[in-house]
């Protein structure tokens, strides 16, 4: 039960309290660029959630087995090659290059798969899929996972990485869909000429960020509620 409640907390933290867009400012480009209509915004959100999940699984595996300090694979290779016993190999300097490779190729594979097997979904995703490669939210999720794989005594498992990735993706979907809803109404409003477009969108985002600050502390409440449930 311990793990389940910690997973729920990671999920809520990524989706609401530390929302990727409104707290960490990652994924601002699609947040401002693709938030004119609710349908496209929701599609973008789903596409990002999908890619974030796949990229996180891959980068967790790469980090856990190869890149983190004290990872098993490089040490094994080192010993097979005839290196000294007990050597430690730290390849974390390669992480960024590896992650960008993982993200670019997983976007490529997802695109091929969706085009081949889900043509309907493909037409609704449209140009968003290739654009996702340069979406900072995905690299950010990989970096957060990497941060939790540095300390060998408290390593994140795949389930924790997945909770963070799916939470972050859903948080992104929530933020961009809300934004699109507001902007659809905003088209009818009388906005000062200079603020039209990005200006007013950023101010709306600021007010949304204030609203999302209200989620601070929700994690503690959920934690207590879960503890009470488990205790009973």
């Amino acid at each position, binding site marked *: 039960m311990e793990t389940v409640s910690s997973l729920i907390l990671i999920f809520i933290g990524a989706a609401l309290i530390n929302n990727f867009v*409104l*707290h*960490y*400012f*990652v994924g*601002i*480009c699609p947040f*401002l660029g693709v938030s004119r209509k609710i349908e496209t915004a929701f599609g973008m959100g789903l596409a990002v959630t999908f890619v974030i999940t796949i990229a996180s699984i891959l980068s967790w595996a790469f980090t856990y087995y190869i890149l983190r300090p004290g990872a098993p694979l490089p040490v094994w290779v080192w010993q097979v090659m005839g290196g000294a016993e007990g050597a430690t190999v730290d390849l974390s*300097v*390669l992480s*960024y*290059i590896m992650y*960008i*490779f993982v993200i*670019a190729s997983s976007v490529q594979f997802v695109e091929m798969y969706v085009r081949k097997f889900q043509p309907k979904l493909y037409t609704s995703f449209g140009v968003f899929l290739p654009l996702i*490669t*340069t*979406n*900072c939210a995905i*690299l*950010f999720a990989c*970096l*957060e996972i990497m*941060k939790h794989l540095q300390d060998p005594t408290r390593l994140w498992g795949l389930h924790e990485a997945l909770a963070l990735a799916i939470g972050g993706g859903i948080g992104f979907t929530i933020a961009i869909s809300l934004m699109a809803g507001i902007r659809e109404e905003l088209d009818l409003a009388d906005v*000062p*000429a*200079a*603020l039209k477009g*990005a*200006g*007013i*969108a*950023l*101010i709306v*985002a*600021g*007010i949304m*960020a*204030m609203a999302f*600050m209200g989620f601070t502390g929700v994690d503690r409440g959920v934690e207590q509620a879960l503890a009470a449930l488990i205790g009973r």
Partner: protein
Amino acid sequence: MSDQPTAAERFLNGILPENPVYRQLLGMCPTLAVTNGMKPAITMAGATAFVLIMSNIIVSLIRGLLKPHLRILVFTLTIATFVTIADRFLAAYMYDMSKQLGPYVPLIIVNCLIISRAEICASKQSLGTAVADAVGMSLGFALALASIATVREILGSGTWFGINVLGTGWPAWGIMVLPPGAFLTLGLLLGGAEWFGKRRSSRAQTG
């Protein structure tokens, strides 16, 4: 390539007429995330400038070898290499700052500003022009970061570069150094820049 801008034009364009943040809305994540104080903003601008200049140099040097379908991958890997160098450098010599900037240093890799300069300028023009373009764009980016950070730090904590400017009686507007302040400041500054630009162009037409 006579229709391409010259080095001097590229340099000047980057600073104001094509300012990466105010005109092209590129590189928004660092613009919003690290501008709660002048020090992180300037460090970020320096790191971005290093990566932008180096990647423009490399891309311009290898522009004859680029294959169209692989060029984006080449750009990204070049940028990722220099970001790794910048990140290691910050971690070695400015440890506290590197901790404060956190994930935003590696996130320079996906800063659209750098990849767009590689695509628009460096992959088409000679070394000198590419360097001039990178320096101009970096200055424009630094200017934008500094302007936002100035507003946020002065209103949010009453200081500028950590030096107290508004006196001890200033009730710090906490919201300005928190995420909402970033969105509000950038939105209003963008509106201001737009309004200023429009007024100047209309005055030029009538006068």
